[in-house]
C-alpha cells in the first residue's frame, strides 16, 4: 500500500501564456503505516503534490505509482484508488451538502457501493473516531460550529476506510484547543487503525510533535526529506524558505551558543525541559567540585 512518485513534474496550463511550473522532478515514496508531515510556504507546490497522490491531477511528466502500478496506465481504476487514498482538502467544511450529518458522512461509503446499512455503520464508526457526539448525527451540518463541521468533513473521508489519509491543513481556522484535539485524533487514527497519514501544514510546531518524517517543499521541489530532528537542524535554511523551526529549536541553539551543554535536537518542550535540567545539574556539580 505505498505511493511512489518518480521524476514527477507538473505544469499548469502547459503551452499557453499562463504556463506555470508547480512541481519539478519530484521523487518520493510514501510507505505503509508512516506518519508524514509535509510542510512548505504558500505556493511551494504542496497542494498540487497531494492531488497527484490520488489521481485528481495528472502529472505532466514522470510517473505516479500505487503498489507499483502506474495510476495513469491502461485499465487502472482511479475511482478505486480514491477510496484507498483519502484526501481531505483545506477547509473541508465547505464540501458538506446533505440534510444531516450522518447522511453526509455516508456519501463516500455509498459511492463505494456499500449498502445503506453498511454505509451507516462505517459512518458512525468514523464519526466516533473524530469525536463527533451521537446527538449531532441527525443535525443539519450547517448548524454545527466550525470545528465540528471540520470533524464531520474529515469523517466523510475516513468513512471510506482509506489505507492512506492525506489532510491539507486540517487545523486552519481553529482555536488552539480545537487544533490540538484534531491533531491528537489524527495521531490516534495512525496508532489504532494503522493508517498511513500525510499531514500538510505550515506550522512546524503542529507537525513536530506527531510525525515520524518531514518532507519540506520549496519552489516546487523537495528541499528536505528526513526525520524531524535532522530537518530542524537546517533551521537557517528553513528560514530562508519562509519557514521556521519550532521555537524550542531556537531556544536550544541559543543556550548552546552561550555555553550550556544542551541537546539542540530536542523537538518538544518536554524534551527540552529535561535536557536543560540535565545540563544545569551538570553545571552545578561542576561548580561544586
Amino acid at each position, binding site marked *: 500500500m505505498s505511493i511512489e512518485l518518480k521524476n514527477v513534474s507538473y505544469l*499548469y*496550463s502547459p503551452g*499557453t501564456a*499562463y504556463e*506555470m511550473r508547480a512541481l519539478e522532478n519530484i521523487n518520493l515514496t510514501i510507505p505503509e503505516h508512516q506518519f508524514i508531515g509535509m510542510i512548505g510556504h504558500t505556493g511551494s507546490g504542496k497542494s498540487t503534490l497531494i*492531488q497527484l497522490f*490520488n489521481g*485528481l491531477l495528472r502529472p505532466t511528466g514522470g510517473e505516479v505509482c500505487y503498489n507499483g502500478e502506474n495510476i495513469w496506465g491502461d485499465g487502472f481504476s482511479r*475511482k478505486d484508488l*480514491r*477510496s484507498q487514498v*483519502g*484526501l*481531505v*482538502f483545506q477547509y*473541508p467544511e*465547505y*464540501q*458538506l*451538502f446533505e440534510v444531516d450529518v450522518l447522511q453526509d458522512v455516508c*456519501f*463516500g461509503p455509498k*459511492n*463505494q457501493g456499500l449498502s445503506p446499512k453498511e454505509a451507516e455503520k462505517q459512518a458512525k464508526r468514523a464519526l466516533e473516531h473524530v469525536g463527533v457526539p451521537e446527538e449531532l448525527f441527525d443535525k443539519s451540518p*450547517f448548524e454545527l460550529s466550525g470545528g465540528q463541521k471540520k470533524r464531520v468533513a474529515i469523517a*466523510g*473521508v475516513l468513512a*471510506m476506510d482509506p489505507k492512506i489519509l492525506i489532510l491539507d491543513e486540517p487545523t486552519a481556522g481553529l482555536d488552539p484547543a480545537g487544533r490540538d484535539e484534531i491533531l491528537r485524533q489524527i495521531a490516534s487514527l495512525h496508532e489504532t487503525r494503522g493508517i498511513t497519514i500525510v499531514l500538510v501544514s505550515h506550522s512546524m510546531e503542529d507537525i513536530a510533535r506527531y510525525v515520524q518524517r518531514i518532507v519540506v517543499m520549496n519552489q516546487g521541489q523537495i528541499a528536505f526529506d528526513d526525520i524531524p530532528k535532522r530537518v530542524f537542524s537546517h533551521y537557517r535554511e528553513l528560514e530562508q524558505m519562509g519557514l521556521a523551526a519550532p521555537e524550542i529549536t531556537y531556544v536550544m541553539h541559543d543556550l548552546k551558543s552561550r555555553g550550556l551543554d544542551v541537546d539542540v535536537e530536542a523537538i518538544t518542550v518536554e524534551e527540552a525541559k529535561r535536557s536543560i535540567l540535565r545540563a544545569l545539574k551538570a553545571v552545578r556539580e561542576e561548580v561544586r567540585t
Partner: protein
Amino acid sequence: MIRDITLGQYYPAKSVLHRLDPRTKFVGTLLFVISLFLFHTFPGYGVATVFLVSMIALSKVPVSFMFKGLRAIFVILLITVAFNIFLTPGRVLWQLGFLKLTYEGLMQAGRMAIRLIYLVVGSSIMTLTTTPNQLTDGLEDLMRPLKRIRVPVHEIAMMMSIALRFIPILMEETDKIMKAQIARGADFETGNIFQKAKGLVPLLVPLFISAFRRANDLAMAMEARCYHGGEGRTQMKPLCYRGRDFVAYGVTLVYLAVSVVFRVKGI
C-alpha cells in the same frame, strides 16, 4: 483548466483603442451598429468593411480573437441564412420540392450574414479593448440621465461589476468542491441525464452556500466602509474625455454621415 478563463474577454495591449474613454467606445460601437442597418447595398458594406478593418488594425488585438465571438452565433447565423435563401420570393434559380432558391433570397441572406458578422465583430472590438470595470463605469455614466426616471443606475452598475468580479472566484470554488467530492467517490461524468443531474447536488449545494456566504461577507465589508449607495459617491478614477476621444467621435460621426448619405441617395 480554470486558470485559462480570462475575465470578460479583455485582451491587454497598448493601442489607441485601449486608451480611449469607455464611453467613446460604447457610443462608437452603437453608431457602428446603426450604420450597419443604414447601409443596404454592397458598396455600402464596402465602406463598413474599411471602417471595421481599420479599427481591428488599430486595436492591435490578434484577428483570431475577433472572430472567436462568431462561434457563439454560428447556429443563429446558419438558420438566418437558410431561411433567407429559401423563403424570399423572387427570381427562381434552382428548385428542390418546395424549396426555392431565389436570386433575391441569396442577396438578402448575404446582407443578413454581413450584418450579423459585423455586428458581433464590431462589439468584440469594444469588449476586447475595454476592461469589464471600465465598461461598467462607462455604462453608469452614459445611463445617468435615466436616474431622472428613477432607474437605479449606480446600483445596476455596482451589481454588474460585483458579478464580473465574482466569476473567477466562483469558478475556482466550483473546481475545488468538485475535486473534494470526486475524492469522496462522486461521479460527475457517467450515467444518463437524470443521474447526472442528481450527481450535481453535492456540487451545487455547497456552491450556493458559499456564494451566499461570500455575498454576506462582501455586504458586511462594504457597510463597514460606509457604503450606502451611489448618493454623493465620487470615483477614484473619474472618466474624463481627452483629445483622442474627440477625434474618435469625429471619425465615427463622419462615418455615420457617410452611411446616412448612402441611405438617402440609395447607393
